[in-house]
């Protein structure tokens, strides 16, 4: 996942405290902030000592319940709100040190954002909404309209260019929101609960759409959601937040297998492991003398997708890496354990 050495987004000890004496309180506490003592001082904590990096082309999903500070974190990184303390770097540049002009410049060229309630301008048509970021940059009307039409086609809304937001369904409105956020071809894509206001079936469809777009565009993505299933489905890495603290940030498989805290474990307990784990994580050692079945499975394959063929085979099935080399084996016993067994008895290789 991490292809270049310099992270696209880098947060170092980011704090956001709402309230009048936020800075003073933070200095007094010396970095260790307690929620309870803050409440006494009339302050509310949004983000508490968040440090992490996002690399190029990576999808990091920030997951948490309402009030956990996930949207606040996103708004700190997009600088929609000012952080109380800490450093944020975008492509190595100090975001918090930028003046208004530089900030507007970086938003016009590098950032796009999608909002929970779409945040479309009610008086503008689909095309005009999508063209807004282009026009404020100073692009001519005809150029920006050409580009907006391309974006309409990209999000598959062709034929509705002149509709007003109120004439569209929720899913269609969010497609407009997505198109608008991508119009300037940003490197960094922020999505703030983009599918939470949609019906379950539409949400599923939009998640697929999101993955399709990402496979074409390869953006660096920070995605906020309160839906753990959505996080598992979309994320390269998941950051789980509670009371402003990032409890754990890791790959979906590791979060499910090794929850760092009791709070994270609560989420993972109900998760069907076969949908999250790859063969690599559960395979047994390959013994060269053993007799193998004719079929093989890839080490990156999600268990759910290979469970049936493995179970119907009498002999163990070889697990291969990208070059076709055998790296391990799976047999029906392991499969049954994964599918029906107790969490703690997994033969897990991490």
């Amino acid at each position, binding site marked *: 996942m991490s292809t270049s050495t310099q992270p696209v987004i880098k947060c170092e000890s980011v704090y956001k405290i709402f309230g009048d004496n936020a800075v003073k309180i933070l200095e007094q506490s010396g970095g260790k902030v307690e929620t309870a003592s803050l409440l006494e001082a009339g302050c509310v904590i949004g983000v508490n000592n968040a440090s992490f990096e996002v690399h190029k082309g990576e999808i990091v999903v920030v997951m948490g319940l309402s009030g956990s500070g996930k949207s606040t974190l996103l708004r700190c990184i997009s600088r929609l709100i000012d952080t109380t303390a800490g450093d944020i770097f975008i492509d190595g540049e100090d975001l918090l040190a930028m003046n208004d002009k530089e900030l507007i410049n970086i938003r016009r060229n590098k950032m796009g954002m999608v909002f929970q309630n779409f945040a479309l*301008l009610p008086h503008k048509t689909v095309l005009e909404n999508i063209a807004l970021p282009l026009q404020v940059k100073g692009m001519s009307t005809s150029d920006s309209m050409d580009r907006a039409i391309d974006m309409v086609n990209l999000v598959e809304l062709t034929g509705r260019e002149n509709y007003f937001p109120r004439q569209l369904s929720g899913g269609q409105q969010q497609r407009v929101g997505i198109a608008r956020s991508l119009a300037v071809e940003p490197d960094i894509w922020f999505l703030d609960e983009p599918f939470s206001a949609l019906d379950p079936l539409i949400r599923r469809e939009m998640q697929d759409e999101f993955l399709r777009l990402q496979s074409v565009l390869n953006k660096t993505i920070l995605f906020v959601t309160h839906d753990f299933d959505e996080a598992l489905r979309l994320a390269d890495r998941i950051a789980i937040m509670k009371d402003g603290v990032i409890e754990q940030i890791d790959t979906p498989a590791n979060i499910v297998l090794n929850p760092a805290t009791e709070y994270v474990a609560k989420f993972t307990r109900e998760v069907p492991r076969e949908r999250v784990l790859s063969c690599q994580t559960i395979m047994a050692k390959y013994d060269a003398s053993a007799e193998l079945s004719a079929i093989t499975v890839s080490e990156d394959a999600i268990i759910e997708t290979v469970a049936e063929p493995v179970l119907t085979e009498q002999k163990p099935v070889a697990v291969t890496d990208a070059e076709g080399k055998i790296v391990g084996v799976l047999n029906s016993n392991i499969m049954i354990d994964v599918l029906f067994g107790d969490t703690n008895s997994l033969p897990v290789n991490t």
Partner: protein
Amino acid sequence: MQYFTEHKWIQFVALLAVFYALVMAIDPATGGNLWRLQETRFWLLPDVVNDGLKFLINDFWVVEVYDAELDLTEESTMMKEFTRGLSGVVLFSINLIRELLLGGVKTVVAFTSWDFISANEWARIPALPWPAVAAGAFLTGHYLGGRNLSILAGASTIYIAVFGQWTPAMQTLSFVLVTVPLSFVLGLVFGTIAFKSKTFEAILAPLLNVAQSMPHFSYLIPVVVFFGIGDHAGAISTVIFATPPMIRLTILGLKKVSPEVLEAGMMSGCNSRQLMFRVLIPSARHDILIGVNQVIMQCLAMAVIASFIGARGLGYELLVSLNSLNIGQALELGVSIVLIAVVLDRLSLAWANKQIDYLADRPFHVRHRYSLAFLGILIVTSVIAYLASMVFPDKANYLYFIHESQGLSTERFWDFIVDWLITNTYNSVQSFNFFMTTSILMPMKEAYLSMPVAATLFLVAGTGYIVGGLRSAIIVTAFIGFIALTPWWDRALITAYMATFAVISSVIIGCSVGILCSRSPRATKVILLVCDTFQTFPSFVYLIPVIMLFGVSDLSVLIAVIVYATIPATRYTVEGLSNVPQTLQEAGSMSGVNRLQRLLKIELPLAFPHIMLGINQTVIFSLFMIIIGAFIGTDDLGQLIMQSLSQANGMGQGIVLGLCVAFIGLAVDHLIHTWAEQRKKVLGIA
């Protein structure tokens, strides 16, 4: 005792009982300060205000001014120079538009001199032929709003021309075309500043409150002192009057924009100017449009009233014809004013909703077809008009300009109707008039005048306390106490009596009509449309039919007030009832209520806070109209305001009188708003 503290109606009964006892106990002859506050130094307040403003104009910040024509350096004050400059700019704008429509030389003079004009006869702006203006109105209507709007705009222009009101109507139009954009821009600017700065909003809010409840006339007096008399003074007083509602609605609209939309604008890379003009203001469009609608309404209402201080146009003509009881002509003029109001209102709405088609790729002559068509018509009509004047040099040129004396007129018809009404209904109208005056109005007026000031203040303070606790009690007592301290307490009581009578009648009529209409969706639509239309009528227009039917009397003022003030009562009742949540209606139906029970037990209680806000509007509207009624002849505060207009030192008196009227309104406003907020919280619909 607990029962007493828990039930407000018992408190009210007790309050009334004490009030009545006080009224009985205080004797006019021996009551002294309890009966009426005696003369104090406070009575000098109007003079102090007067002197203060005079000082501001004549002695404050003296500057040297060089007069190029006389080659002299003169002493003047900053305020004088400022008002002179402002007057010049406003007058120039009005004259420019006026002369484009009607022709004239003043615009050219502004850049040259009168000598230049006398030397060069060609140096003047020619008037547009009226058919060209009518075609322009038609095309604008078609461009902005399609067929219906084009017919409305075109037909209205033709009516005005054919009925020989071209000159005054175009004068009014030029007046309005300056004041409306000016008020709109000022309102938008102040509104956005207030939206950005909390401090500025805090300063502005009380000023807006007072400004919006001061009667129209009070604005005229200081304006005359500062700016003199004429179109510019009228325009400036109009702008002062029309801007506050625009400011208020701008703030309201901007506050309603969802934070996500704001963030979306920021993330799209808008700078603060783009954020304001491309995101915030357009998103707040709905409320800002209501503001524009209000501005147009107020500007046309003021166009009539501003003619008291020299604004020319339909308003002035209307005033003259009402003065000479020329009802037929007044009616035609009134119709013209209403038509201008309605057309401008609809055009501005359609303009704001106009959609641009970016996909169409069209050649020049299609894209500019409206401008080209107008240009064509302008040339054709000018040529025809010119040819006609060549062929018939001595005759009136109907294709170019229809003079007042040459236009059609239904004046005789209306005068005949009025004559007929007077001869045939004289007895019944007189007996109705007599009955109302002797058995209702006079006793009511006397009852109000016999209230001792101590008892009244006690009643006011008590009501404030019951409704909103100590804070409200202090606020309303301060408002009413101010009036008691002035020499005009009795006049204020007369205003109060008229307002009470009008408000009670309006509320009874308005709420009944509202409730009946809210029973069917179609009737709801119709009545809202009727309210919309009536609301665009300038307040002065309401006096015309009333004088026509009832002659000049207190009663006719009251009838005009009632008609005018019934509109908000009706509108808010309909809105309140139709906004009752569907789920509650269904819950009621499933509990087995019948229609009447549903109305009484579910809809009315829920709609009541909103209806109360309508009643609040009714109070303000009736106060305004009562003051305007002074034109017909009343003996309340309004009459004094009218009088101070023509007094040399009337400025201080006019302002203080205006404040008295404003404070009556503000006291009522405070009580109703406090009550409605509490009630909404209780009902969970805040």
